[in-house]
């Protein structure tokens, strides 16, 4: 086993997040231990009693990014009130399953009495609308998932 062979082996182990590895063949015996202290280190991250933690359903930039493959989230670029339609009596800008073009208006965020149109940055199909009409949304909150 040469260095190049070992390098390739390690790449595979790293990508699989293997921490301990032991391989014995006739030619060699390989043992290795990767990564920090071995311990999944995070006992210290929450200085708060459970009752103080953010309820999981609450809107927040803290939401885990929806990392489904092929789905691109649209984030709120400003803080304000989310509207799906230009006016209460009008149809929504977009609906789930609809194909949108780059630059097409997806919603309005009202901030400081100004209506800000939020446009699609990429073309694709609306797969999910994550905010409800009239919801307050914060900076960075996911509003739509678009399949590109």
């Amino acid at each position: 086993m040469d260095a190049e062979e070992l390098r390739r082996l390690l790449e595979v182990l790293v990508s699989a997040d293997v921490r301990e590895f032991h391989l014995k063949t006739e030619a060699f015996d390989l043992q290795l231990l990767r990564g920090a202290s071995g311990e999944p280190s995070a006992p210290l991250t929450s200085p708060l009693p459970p009752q103080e933690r953010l309820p999981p359903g609450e809107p927040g930039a803290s939401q885990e990014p929806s990392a489904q493959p092929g789905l691109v989230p649209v984030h709120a670029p400003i803080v304000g009130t989310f509207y799906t339609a230009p006016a209460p009596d009008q149809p929504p800008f977009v609906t789930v399953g609809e194909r949108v073009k780059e630059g097409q208006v997806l919603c309005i965020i009202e901030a400081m009495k100004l209506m800000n149109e939020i446009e699609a940055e990429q073309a694709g199909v609306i797969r999910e609308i994550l905010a409800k009409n009239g919801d307050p949304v914060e900076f960075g909150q996911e509003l739509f998932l678009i399949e590109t």
Partner: protein
Amino acid sequence: MADRALFQKILIANRGEIALRVVRAAKELGIQTLVVYSQADERSLPVLLADESVCVGPPPSSKSYLNIPNILSAALMTGAQAIHPGYGFLAENPEFAEMCRDHGLVFIGPTPESMHLLGSKAGGRKLAAECEVPTVPGTGILSGVEEALSSARQLGYPVLLKASAGGGGRGQRVVRTEQELPEALAAAQNEALLHFADPSVIMEKLIEGFRHVEVQVLGDGRGEVIHLGERDCSVQRRNQKLIEEAPSTLPESLRRELLAAGVRLAKRVQYAGAGTLEFIVDRDGHFYFMEMNTRIQVEHPVTEMISGVDLVRWQILIAAGHPLTLHQEDIHLQGHAIECRINAEDPDREFRPSPGHIDNIHFAGGPGVRVDTHAYSGYQIPPNYDSLIGKLIVHAPDRAWAIARMRRALEESVVEGVKTTIPLYLKVMDHPYYRRGAVQTDFIRAQMGL
């Protein structure tokens, strides 16, 4: 007064320990708290402890903590009735205070008018003259080199050039001879333009070797003003305060004069809320008014410790229109308090900021110790903001005891994962100059060689 309906909800437009301080005051008043934050502060203690939180932008403060539209939107859409700006960021921005008013929100602080009046050095100087409070001999805004040369001749060298709108030592130039003056003036104007978008520069007689002493006041906005004693903030490094104490070690008669001058100034502008009048005191015991800070200060806890008055609570009460039921004769200052600002900095490497992961943090406890910190074990200090991670404050019946108490409290305190200023403060507590109470603003450089 805690029972009286005040605000139902306030928005806190700040971060770190001062955001937490306001959350605490609001909770004790039964007021709902909404903390706005940048993406870098999502796991910070004030965000985690507030009733609600709204992200208002990415890490750079210009896009989050200074993002007025997002902050006002957050207030309006969540039904907050008032905004506490903390210190720094938007705390001394009269335009922001005006915009709050325009949107029907209470700005917890003085009126935009008194902020305008007190915001510039030139404004403060004019006010002081009206109140017969001494300022450092100097000029108004300099029209050009001619005026600068003749003013300097009149004041006598060395003189100091200063940005009228500035602070924190930026745009300052010491001039010791006539020859240097024209070039220094041009440089100061450029720097002032760069940092404060205003090239106006004033000139002052340079005072060498002085203490920084400041007077804490509370005003009700209708002309009633009380003081809560003074603080000595002379332990500084590059114009940044490190250690503060209350009261000062100045002679009693000088203290009385200073306090009276502070109250006179604040009364003149019918000041509302908590404010601080900064003075310098030279070696001969002359004092000069420098400027007024129209906000809560980092070092407010030392005043709270000796007065028993909760300054942040009073800021909220006064902003809500509550009468200032505290009178001067109710204020009894007791004992001595010292604050050390625990900064994530490396004193051995020119105080370079040391952001990073706090593996373990343990602060002192026991009698007479107060800890104001937003840090916790596991907290990641973001590199985007200042390096203050906590304040250690002690209170004891006298100054010698307070120093002994601070010493033992510093020894008990541990921060693992980042470098802090704790080892420096242990040395200061043992330093004969500091123990004698004879520290000037050049102490850290001149006496400790840092």
